[in-house]
C-alpha cells in the first residue's frame, strides 16, 4: 500500500460568506473516463494506491469489495460503475480515495487524482436539469474555475443513492 498523499483536514480559512457559499471551498478533483469531478476536501481522509480488493458476493456491481486499511476493513465503491460507465483497466494512476462521511470510512476507486482546488462561490453554478434520465441530486453544483468544467459531487449522496444502473438483485441470482 502506498500513500500518495495525505490530505490535511483543515477548513479553508478564506471561505467567502453569502449566497452559494455553502458549496464554495476546497475540492479534490479527479478524473473518471476523461471527465473531471470534484469532491469536498473535508470529506477526504487520504488517498491510497490501488490494492487487492476482496469481492463481497451478492452486492451491487459497483461495490467492488473490501480492503484492509491498516487493520480496518472498509468497503470500496467503483465510481465508474456507480455512474454506469464501463470498467476501466487498472493503471498506475488508478487509486482509492478514502472518504469519511457520516462517521463511516469508505473507499472510492477513481481513474486518476488531479489537484486540490479552491473554488469560489462566483465560479459555481447550480446543477442543471439534465432530463429525467439523469439524477442530479448528488451534484452540489458545477465549478467553472480555470476555464474547465468540473462536476462537484455530494459524495454522501452519491454513496447512499442506489445504482444508476440496476445491479443484480438477490432474488434473480439465487441458486439453481
Amino acid at each position, binding site marked *: 500500500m502506498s500513500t500518495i498523499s495525505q490530505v490535511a483536514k483543515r477548513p479553508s480559512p478564506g471561505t467567502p460568506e453569502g449566497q452559494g457559499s455553502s458549496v464554495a471551498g476546497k475540492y479534490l478533483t479527479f478524473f473518471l473516463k476523461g471527465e473531471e469531478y470534484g469532491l469536498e476536501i473535508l470529506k477526504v481522509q487520504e488517498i491510497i494506491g490501488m490494492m487487492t480488493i476482496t469481492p463481497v458476493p451478492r452486492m451491487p456491481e459497483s461495490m467492488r469489495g473490501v*480492503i484492509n486499511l491498516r487493520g480496518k476493513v472498509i468497503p470500496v465503491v467503483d465510481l465508474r460503475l456507480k455512474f454506469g460507465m464501463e470498467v476501466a483497466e487498472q493503471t498506475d494512476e488508478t487509486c482509492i480515495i478514502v472518504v469519511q462521511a457520516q462517521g463511516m470510512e469508505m473507499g472510492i476507486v477513481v481513474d486518476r487524482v488531479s489537484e486540490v482546488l479552491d473554488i469560489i462561490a462566483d465560479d459555481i453554478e447550480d446543477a442543471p436539469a439534465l432530463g429525467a434520465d439523469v439524477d442530479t441530486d448528488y451534484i452540489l453544483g458545477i465549478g467553472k474555475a480555470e476555464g474547465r468544467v468540473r462536476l462537484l459531487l455530494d459524495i454522501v449522496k452519491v454513496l447512499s443513492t442506489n445504482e444508476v444502473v440496476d445491479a443484480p438483485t438477490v432474488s434473480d441470482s439465487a441458486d439453481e
Partner: protein
Amino acid sequence: MTQRNEWILETIKLVSSEIRTLGPDEREALSDLESALDAAEAELDDRTSQLAELLGLSRQGMRALAHGAQVDFDGLADAILGGMVTAEQLLTSELDPMRATLARLACDALRSALPAAPSREAREEVGARTADVEPVAEEEMAFNLLPDDHDPELMAEFITECRDYIQKAEVALLSLETNPDDDEAVNTVFRAFHTIKGTAGFVGIDPVAKVAHHAESLLSRIRDHEIRCTGGYADLSLRSVDALKDLMQALQDALAGDVVETPEGLEDLLRLLADPEAAGITGEPSVDGDLAVPRLGDILVAEGRAGRADVEATAAGQGERLLGEALVQSGVASAGDVARALRTQKRLAADDRTAESSVRVRTDRLDRLINIVGELVIADSMVSQDAVVISGGHLDLVRKVNHTSKIVRELQDLTMSMRMVPLKATFQKMARLVRDLGQKSKKAAEFITEGEETEIDRNMVDILNDPLVHMIRNAMDHGIEPPEEREWLGKPRKGSVWLSAYYQGSNVVVEVRDDGRGLNREKIVEKALARGLIESEKGLSDSAVFTLIFEPGFSTAEQVTDISGRGVGMDVVKRAIDSLRGRIEIASAAGEGTTFKIRLPITLALTDGMLVKVGRERYIIPTLNISMSFRPAPGALFTVADRGELVMFRDDLMPIIRLHRLFHVVGAVEDPALGLLVIVDDGRNRCALLVDELLGQQQVVAKSLGGSIGKAPGISGGAILGDGRVGLILDPFAIIALAGQGGNTNERIAHLMPA
C-alpha cells in the same frame, strides 16, 4: 500492615460496633470508648495525617457524648460512626483521591456535629425518625437525587463502589437463605449497608442514605439475634438491596443528565423497614437455635460420627486444648472424621475472603488494547510467513522472528484473559431468581450450580444473562411440578434446577437442567402443525421437534402465568445465543426433566475459523458451525428433479449448497466428487457446502465490513488474513436460508425419501 496499625484498626472497629448500640445514659461505656480512641490516636505514626485529624475529631465527639454535652446524640454518634468507617478505610487501603475526599467530608461532618449544631446528616436523621418538623428534610426527599454541587467523578466512583457493596450484600443474603445463622454473612450485609449509608451521607445522596440506614437498623437487629434472617425479614433485606440497586441506576441516569423519578415503592419500603412488625412481617421461625457457624461438635453429631453426650463431656473437659484435638485424644471421634467436620465447618463459614487486588480499567480502553493486540498477531504472522523468512536462508532472522512470535502469543493470551470474567456473578443472579420464582409459584426448588469459576468474555456475560433468565423461568414455571404432583409421581417434593458451566475444547458449555416434567413432544408437534411450522411429524427426530420451541411466539403452556408462558422467551434465547455465535441443544425425557446445553466460544474477539478456497476466493467458516467435512463418493450424490442436489453421508441425507454458485465465483471446482463438502448445521438444518479445498484452521479477529456493506447476505464479517488481504467470514445459517433451504430440512428430505 504493622502491628501497631492493626491494633488501631481493632480499636476503630470496636468503636464502630459499639457506638450505635450505646445510648446517652451509658456514660461509662462511652468514656471507655473515648479513652480507647485516645490511645489509638497516640499510637499513630503520623500526627498530621487525615487519619489523625479524624481520630482527634472523633475523640472529641466521643467526649461530648460521654459527658452529656448539649448535643444531638444520634447525629453526633452517626458522624463519629462515619468517621470510624472512613478511618477504617484509610487504614486498610491506599490513600486515593476518593478516600481523601471522603475523609475530608467525614471531618467536616464531625466538626459540624460537634458544637451542638446538628450536622446535615444528623438533621436528616432526625427528620427521618420523627417524620415531622423540618419541612426542609421533606423537600430533600422530593426527588432531586443529585446535590447541586456534586462532583461527577466522585459520584461515578461512589456508584461503582456502592454497586460492589450491594453485590456483596446480595451474595451474603443468599447464603443466609441456606444458613440464616451465619453471623459472618450477617455482618457482611450489615457492613455493606453501613458503608453505603456513610458514603451516601457524605456525598449528599439522601434517599440512598435513608434506605441504607433503615436496612442497617434491620440488620443490626438480626446481628444482635433479636430476629433471624428468615422469611419476611430476609425478603425485606433483599428488597432493600433491590431498592439500592434501583437508586444506583437512577443516580447514574441522573448523572447522565436524565430526569429521574423516585423508584417505585421506595416510600413503602422505608415504612416497612421502619417498623416491619407493624406491617405483619415476621421471620416465620423455622428451626430453633440461634447458633452462628455450626459448632464442630454439632457437625460430628449430625453426621453420626460421635454421640452428643460424649462430645459434651469432652468439650467440658477440653481445657486449653482445641475441641478437635480433645475429641481425637479422648477417642470420641477419629482424626479423619474431625478433619472432615472441620472442613465442613470451614466451608459453611467461608465467605469471599479471596479478594484479589485489582485495578479498574475502562472497558473501551481494554477493547482497544485487545483489538490492537489482535492486529499485532496478524502483523506478526505476516512477518513470519514472509517469503524471505520462510526461504530458510536466514537462520538468525528466523530465530529472531520466532522469538518475537512467542512474545506476541503470550501477550495475546494475557490480553484475552484480561476481559475474561468468571460466571459466578451471573450464576448468583440466577440463584436469586430461582428463590423469588419459587416463592411466587409456590414451588420449592433447589438450585445447584457447578463450575461458576468458568470464565468467559465479559462482553458476553451480559448477553448471556437474558437467555439464562428465560430458561430458568421456564424450568421453574413449566418444568418443575407443584410439590403435591411431584409427591404423587414419586419424586422428591423439592425440585432441582442445575446450572453448570465447563470448558470443552475451545468452547464454554453452559447447561441448564431441571428434573421436572420434560418437554411434551406431542404437544409441540400439535402446536407446530397448528401454526403451520411443519407439515407432518414424519421423520422428525426428538431434537428436531424440541428445537421448534425456539420459533417466535411458540408456547405450549396451557396457561399464562405472570412468570412465563406468553410465548415470548425461547426465541429470545435462540437469538441471544446466535448473536454470541453459540449453539443450543435440547435434550428432554418426559417425566425426567429437560437439559438445555449452550455451547459458546470463549471470546467474541477471536473466531476459530476454517479457511476454505472457492475458485480464487477464500472464505472463513466458523469452526463452531462445522460438524465435519468429507469428499463424497460419486455414488453418494443424488439429484432430485427441481429439488436440488443431495448427498448421502452415513445414512444421513442432506442438501448440497454450491458456494461458488451462490456467490458467483468463477473457476471453482464444480464436481462435488472432486471438491470437498463441509457439513454445517444449526441444530435443525444440516447442509453440505461445496468448496474446493480446506486451507487450514486459523484464529481470526472478526470485524464488521463497515458502512452500508454491513448487511452482506451470507457474510457475518471480515478478517485480515495472514497475507494482509481481507477474508470474508461466512454465516452458515444465513447461507442455508439464502440457498432457499430454510424451513425444515429434515422434513423436506422426508418428502423426498421413497416411502
